[in-house]
């Protein structure tokens, strides 16, 4: 017997719950935006400039001792935390106006070598000057905007403008909620998170487009059906696929999250959240909002009996 996550003949009235979904999403969006402005994001050095050192000690790291040593370096606020294991530490230092990138890392290394009771070896060092970090922010924001714009254009060409708008509303929803998640968890927001957001954008769209495709097909198939029913039907017809793909992607991501190592933890966390948000938004937001816009269906009807399906593969 084969496993069926979505039983045959499932008919969930998704569209009827749209008011609740809109209210919920509006609330989440307001929460995310206010979190962003009050709590802010924990920007990594990619966007803030500064230094990051991942170090390895032989015994469990004594954070208290390390703090007092690094506090005395005269490098301003130095933040320390363990990273995965208790003998792995992350040292973050703000950007230094007076010192070159090289000097700071050397200074920390020398001081720890001579003053800390255990051997400290540096596994990874990163230093980003303010010029570079400013550009990274710019290109990060630009790339997300461009992706949204390009997608709007593509869907407009392939479908109708109403679909494009619906997809973009869902996308903006996803991006804002992902940023909200980073604000509330204070996970480090760095370059790879921008990559995660763009992948979420791609994934969520993937989901949305599959449903839209079916709505378009059904629009041609059922001429008399009421719009809410038609959207519901399309959502239910594609539901099995929506759930299956989310589950397989989540399985792969779960493996990455638990076994992929500390460095990509934030990235996979963002992706996992994004799969949930993206799946939710394509079912509860992207499709119901089509009701806001008049979808044409009479004008471009093909003649009776003519093939009406999307381009076929023969």
């Amino acid at each position: 017997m084969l496993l069926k996550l979505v039983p045959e003949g499932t008919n969930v009235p998704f569209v009827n719950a749209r008011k609740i979904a809109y209210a919920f999403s509006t609330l989440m969006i307001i929460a995310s935006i206010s979190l962003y402005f009050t709590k802010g994001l924990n920007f990594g050095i990619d966007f803030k400039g500064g230094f990051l050192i991942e170090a390895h000690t032989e015994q469990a790291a004594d954070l208290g001792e390390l703090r007092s040593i690094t506090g005395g370096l005269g490098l301003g606020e130095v933040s320390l935390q363990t990273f995965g294991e208790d003998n792995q530490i992350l040292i973050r230092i703000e950007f230094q106006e007076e010192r070159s990138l090289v000097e700071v890392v050397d200074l920390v290394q020398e001081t720890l070598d001579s003053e800390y009771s255990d051997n400290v070896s540096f596994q990874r060092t990163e230093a980003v000057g303010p010029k570079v970090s400013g550009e990274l922010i710019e290109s990060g924001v630009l790339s997300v905007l461009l992706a949204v714009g390009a997608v709007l254009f593509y869907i407009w060409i392939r479908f109708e403008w109403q679909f494009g708008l619906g997809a973009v509303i869902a996308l903006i929803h996803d991006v804002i909620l992902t940023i909200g998640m980073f604000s509330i968890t204070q996970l480090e927001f760095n370059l790879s998170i921008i990559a995660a957001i763009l992948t979420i954008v791609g994934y969520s769209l993937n989901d949305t487009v599959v449903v839209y495709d079916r709505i378009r097909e059904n629009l041609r198939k059922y001429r008399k059906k009421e719009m809410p029913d038609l959207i519901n039907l399309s959502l239910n017809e594609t539901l099995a696929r929506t759930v299956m793909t989310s589950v397989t992607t989540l399985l792969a991501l779960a493996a990455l999250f638990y076994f992929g190592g500390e460095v990509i933890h934030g990235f996979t966390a963002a992706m996992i959240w994004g799969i949930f948000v993206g799946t939710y938004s394509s079912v509860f937001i992207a499709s119901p909002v089509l009701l806001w816009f008049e979808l044409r269906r009479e004008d471009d009807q093909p003649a009776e009996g003519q093939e009406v399906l999307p381009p076929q593969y023969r």
Partner: protein
Amino acid sequence: MLEFPRWKVITIALATLIGVLLAVPNFLTDEQIAGLPDFMPKSQVTLGLDLQGGAHFLLEVDASGVIENMLLDKGQTIRDDLRDENILHRYRLVGDNVIFTLTNPEDRENALRVIRSSIVKVGVSLSSVGTDDVIIADGSGAVINVAYTEEAILEKKVQSVQQSIEVLRRRIDGTGTKEPTIQQNGADRILIQLPGIEDTEAFKIIFNETAQMNFHLTNLAVSQEDIFRGRTPPRTTIYPSVEKDEAGNPMRLFAIRDEVMVSGEDLTNASYSMDQNNQPAVNITFNAKGGKQFADATRANVGKPFAIILDDEVISAPNINTAILGGSAIITGSFTVQEANDLSMLLRAGALPAPLEMIEERTVGPDLGADSVEAGKIASILGLAAVMVFIVLCYGFFGIVANVALTINIFMIFGILSMFGATLTLPGIAGIVLTVGMAVDANVLIFERIREEMRSGKNVLSAIDAGYSRAFGTIIDANVTTLIAALILFQFGSGPVKGFAVTLAAGIFTSVFTAVSLSRLFIVTWARKRRPATLKL
């Protein structure tokens, strides 16, 4: 219905075979690859710095000094020309402008003619006649304002960046680093990647020293007292010694004549050697021009000291005992063996035309890189296994076909990455794992569609056929949107993020191919042979 023309079968099989063959070298050791027959592909996926360990530097070329020197030179040339024509004038530098003030305003026409004749074309190429290097901006009467054109300044900047890259390449090669990447990044930046380098300390010297070395005569007429007070006669500058006391102050100060006796550019070789007291020293050899200048200068100044100045510090100031005619000399100073070696390497590679500023630096130790590779492997295998088991549970026989396609898919991703010599980064591994999750999507779309078609009463063969053909449009639309995101990531991302975009994009192509061609071929062949009456799907 369900027809698969022979040419299509052959094309699909060939594409699959090539994709998989391209991936093969990644699973072999170096010796095994060397033993492969010639027709086999041999290139492997390059591991990113985050996976194999190494250092990444982004340097910015500060060309302002070069531009200012260019202005000074031009001003000097024009002054000489004006003097030859007996046109009396004063001149000063203001920003990017050289301003000439004529003593007699009636010389203006003559002066303009002289200045115009000094104009040189820049940016000349096959397609362009070039632009004047300077424009005579404005001014009237006695004042003539000469400014460099943007094109000339740009060309100079580009030149400095390119020269810097050349010098850095020679310096890095001089250290014996394997497979360094040195490339221009934007208008005035240089990106350097040194795989496998753990001790970046040794490399700092490569970027920090411009290594401009010149030989000057010292000005003996200046008293020690004047030197300390900073009082110098014209065309004499005070330079500190390279040796410092404990407080970091220079041990000595020298009054040095500005005129260059021999320039470091006229060196042909520099090597480590020992002086007569067995102290580390650097042996230098001049080219013909430098050798002659050095011979002339030493012959004329026997008994006087001269100074060897490196990056505005005096490394040594020996007395000229006899004229040095052989075209080579030994620089002694208080060098350690390491310093003498470094200096000879820097001198051999030549001077940087402009100072470099480090604006980004990332290093990853090889242990951490190896850990990441290990973690990535485990995560990929587990993720893949979980997805495969799940798919078989859901789709039975069709799931097995999807899994075969998925496995080939992963080989093909590696094949594409190897073919393009792409770099695999940790986020790139995440991209592959993610592709695994999403590659299934195309199959899921098809299988679910077949289920639907069966439900609507179609027989097995037409349901399979309709399932594949109707899902195709959806698959294309859904994947193009993800591809758009991947392309934008590639364009704007840097380093590891780019690596992620590459694997994501490669994964999109291979997963669409394996789902709509390969798995279709399998299923259709199977269905035609067995002619099943019902489908377990």
